[in-house]
């Protein structure tokens, strides 16, 4: 079943077409990776899905419901959560309180509207829910530390836990692996797989291509705002169009060589 569907989504800024007629489907329970070189429109696409931007054309559907152009907090209430590339935590609150905010905020909406959407959202035991989430990301021991005092990687975990606390069906990860060492990236991939195993559908936008190819079961490749490839990781990594997009089309006819 398709959880998220994009149909012909386009967005332009001041005459520059950032995203052009992009369509794809994120199946429920899958992990979709989105990749592309600098300036390919990945970030814009991400923001369009998360609700931070409104598409000029096209439709975005969550299951059957049209969610095109809905604001981020409404998207959250519908079960779409996101992380931020430049981690945006509440630095003065403790780790536990940061997660609690996600728990109460996301679920509070859900409690009011949950019945209408057929999703049960009541959370009888917040403490237990927080403890579970912290265990998934490995922050249990640091629950009472102030968020400002965490290391970069730990802050990413906290952001992830907080997003998960809103109880999403679809989790959007925005360059989650940026700036991590290879060891940290491997740890991040383990946690992401764990989250996926618990039933959350994931969509990842990443620059760290090898991690993306390893994690995703399906990949969409963007270049200059357009979708140029879609398929399983193995096919994508060897697709000549993808290689061209990343490495450039090469020396052009008539251009001086090896000066």
């Amino acid at each position, binding site marked *: 079943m398709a959880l998220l569907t994009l149909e012909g989504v386009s967005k332009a800024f001041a005459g520059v077409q950032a995203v052009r007629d992009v369509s794809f489907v994120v199946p429920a329970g899958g992990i979709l990776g989105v990749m592309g*070189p*600098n*300036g390919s429109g990945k970030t814009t696409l991400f923001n369009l899905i998360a609700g931070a931007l409104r598409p000029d054309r096209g439709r975005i559907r969550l299951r059957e419901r049209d969610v095109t152009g809905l604001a981020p907090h409404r998207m959250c209430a519908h079960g779409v959560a996101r992380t931020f590339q430049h981690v945006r935590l509440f630095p003065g609150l403790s780790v536990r309180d940061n997660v609690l905010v996600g728990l109460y905020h996301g679920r509070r909406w859900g409690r009011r509207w949950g019945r209408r959407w057929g999703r049960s959202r009541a959370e009888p035991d917040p403490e237990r829910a927080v403890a579970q989430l912290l265990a998934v990301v490995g922050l249990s021991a640091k629950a009472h530390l102030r968020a400002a005092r965490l*290391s*970069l990687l730990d802050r990413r975990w906290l952001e992830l836990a907080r997003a998960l606390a809103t109880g999403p069906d679809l989790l959007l990860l925005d360059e989650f692996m*940026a*700036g991590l*060492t*290879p060891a940290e990236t491997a740890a991040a991939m383990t946690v992401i797989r764990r989250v996926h195993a618990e039933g959350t559908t994931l969509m990842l936008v990443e*620059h*760290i*291509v*090898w*991690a*993306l*190819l*390893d994690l995703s079961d399906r990949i969409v490749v963007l270049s200059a705002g357009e979708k140029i490839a879609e398929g399983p*990781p*193995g096919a*994508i*990594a*060897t697709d000549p169009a*993808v*290689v061209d997009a*990343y*490495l*450039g*089309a*090469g*020396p*052009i006819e*008539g*251009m*001086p*060589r*090896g*000066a």
Partner: protein
Amino acid sequence: MPIWGRDQSRGCRGVLEVRQIDAAYGELRALTRVSVRVEPAEIVALVGSNGAGKTTLLRCIAGLVPVRGGRVLWDEEDLGALLPHQVVERGVALVPEGRRLFGRMTVEENLALGAFGRRAREGRAAMLERIYAIFPRLAERRRQRAGTLSGGEQQMVAIGRALMTRPRLLMLDEPSLGLAPRIVEAMLGVLTEVHRAGVAVFLVEQNVRAALGLAHRAYLLEHGAVVGEGRGADLLADPGVRRAYLGPLALLG
């Protein structure tokens, strides 16, 4: 006629040597024990996937990012102690990513500002004519406000402006970003001409294949460390480059 000024041709060699430098943004480790070398009148390319540290390396050399551990040597002088405008005065110029023109000023004003330093000021008029000869389109638009130019023209102004500082080493950070292939071709051709005029070029470029085709030598950067080095043509064929950008799966098939 070489581009650099009189005092520089007096026995100064123009060798850039980066020795084992580290750099970080807060806790984010950006560069780890990176060493590169650019000889006079070479074109050296720096390739690597996004986030590998290419921009950071250029900014470290230019003096915009502090270097921790290791040294940046230009003609045996440690650039680490200098402020960016002093680095320019020594003959190392950076064309930053995104052009960064002064949009409210005219093309000519932008170019003229390149000749701000004492060394660049002498022979400024001649240099300006030289730039207009290399970029005839700019001569037509010299009184136009820089902000109204097309992307390709803006890139030409950015390169021209850096050349006005009379560098012996010109560094460029992704000059082809956002430009149409025709323009990229023209621009890379310009770099050849610049090189022929005696300026060394250190190039970070998104069109990796074109850059490797153009360069004499290249370095491959990954996760802030140098993982490959060789002649441009050799690296072109090296599967390590493909792996760096697209991961190990790219090596199959």
